[in-house]
């Protein structure tokens, strides 16, 4: 057994175990934390496969940002898990069907690799071993697939604007701070210096 293989088994075992704990733990916060553990171990698997850029993007984007917001929401919610479990048997058949379909697809992919190992190599781009994969990915993404890449970015942007528009509500009667107005105020605009003579007071 080589060292990478040893780490492969560790990472994949922890990934599978924590993925199981995501759906079986009673506390929703623990479930999210197990999900994060699964993400981190999946990043480890990417790293072993030589895709170090994808591994770190997974950590930065999913673990560092998406999962934080996830955790944020789950902590704020008061979820009664016993209540949610009551209907679990109802959904079980649907879940089993989805699971079987996924399993079949995975078997098909693995099977095609076994039957015809060079079938996949015709469609994919040749990997340049001398180049680190950040550069290789960038060269492909911004030349050959630039329109698809920009299209995906545009869809994400529209989705983001959509989410903002859906949750935006303009409340009336809210006093907002305008920093520019505050900084632009001059003493002459607001202050009036008055010399008051003793015994006369102000008019």
């Amino acid at each position, binding site marked *: *057994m*080589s*060292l990478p*293989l*040893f780490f492969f088994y560790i990472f994949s075992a922890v990934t599978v175990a924590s993925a199981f704990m995501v759906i079986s733990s009673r506390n929703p*916060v623990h479930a999210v*934390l197990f999900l*994060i553990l699964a993400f981190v171990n999946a990043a480890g698997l990417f790293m072993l496969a030589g895709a*170090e*850029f994808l591994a*770190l*993007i997974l*950590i*930065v984007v999913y*673990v*560092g*940002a998406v999962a*934080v*917001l996830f*955790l*944020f929401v789950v*902590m*704020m919610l008061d979820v009664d898990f016993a209540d949610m479990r009551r209907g679990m048997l109802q959904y079980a058949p649907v879940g089993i069907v989805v699971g079987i379909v996924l399993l079949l697809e995975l078997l098909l992919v693995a099977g095609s690799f076994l039957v015809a190992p060079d079938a996949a190599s015709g469609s994919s781009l040749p990997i340049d071993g001398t180049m*680190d994969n*950040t*550069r290789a990915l960038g060269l492909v993404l911004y030349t050959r697939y630039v329109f698809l890449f920009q299209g995906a970015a545009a869809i994400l942007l529209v989705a983001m604007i959509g989410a903002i528009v859906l949750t935006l509500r303009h409340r009336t009667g809210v006093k907002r*701070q305008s*920093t520019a107005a505050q900084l632009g105020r001059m003493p002459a605009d607001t202050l009036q210096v008055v010399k008051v003579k003793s015994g006369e007071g102000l008019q």
Partner: protein
Amino acid sequence: MDFINAALDYLLGIPAIGLGTQIGFVYKALALLVGLLIFTAFILLADRKVWAAVQLRRGPNVVGPFGLLQSFADLLKFVFKEAIIPAGADKILFLAAPLITATLALAGWVVVPVFDGGAMANINIGILYLLGVSSLGVYGVIIGGWASNSKYPFLGALRSAAQMVSYEVSIGLVIITVLLCVGSLNLNDIILAQRDMGLAHAIGVPWLTFLNWFWLPLFPMFVVFYISALAETNRPPFDMVEGESELVAGFMTEYSATPYLLFMLGEYISILLMCAMTTVLFLGGWTSPIDLPPFTWIPGLIWFFIKVTLVFFMFAMAKSIVPRYRYDQLMRIGWKLFLPLSLIMVIIVAFVLQLTGWGWHGGVA
């Protein structure tokens, strides 16, 4: 067992006495850890001394000469106290949170090149690794705040989640501007690029290395990075996470003894990591400011620590001079000022590099 031998060689090898083929990782790790902890102890004292000096106080001055041993006395005091775990706390997560903070803070130092090629792991995506590790730092705070099962820690945790995620965005964009100029994600390459190209070369005085460093051409980004680093590490004036006037001590309210010590340690080590990142990205890392004999005699390691200390001094001065920000103003700076500014800078830098052909292109002309 082939892989055990390979692992032992990698971890514990000593070529000098015929054990293995390379110097073991464990020894390098120990050297880095011990050096870092001692440096942190004195940086902690320096922080308090600077803060005291600004307020015309003496600061810690009792333990050892000039209070030099104060941090070690504090360490012993924390370790020998009883660690109290609140009755309603989630025990495992409560104790895991400080460990996560301290471990992640230390993990970032693995890729920092403290001298030429002096990183423990000289990986070609070093800067991305640093970004990843610092983005994980928020978990220690959130988990600690939630597991305490108390309202002030929880409010602190929620604030930190929003704050740290927001400022990561502008830090990421600042890093992208630097990477555009360098053309490599390797931290050592970023430093080499600052030595081998830049303003000093352009005006014909290549020995004035400090004019080469990215702080000059990317000055707005340097300022954005410095302020974002303060916010990212929850340093004052952005320490809403533990603002004592509102939240007692924020997410650390329920912590005591060694777990608290680990939080403090993790916080200071990640502050130092941010200082080191500033040094690497903008201040030329281990290169000497002037490439002439009296300066080049000083080894790169010393230059690196001088620069890190200097950046930390700026952090400490910000703590003592600037009053604490209000939370909505903090968010406003992050999203409405820094994000557009750094986005525009990314576009400008990309345009300039494309049109003029400047840049280091990963060392390949």
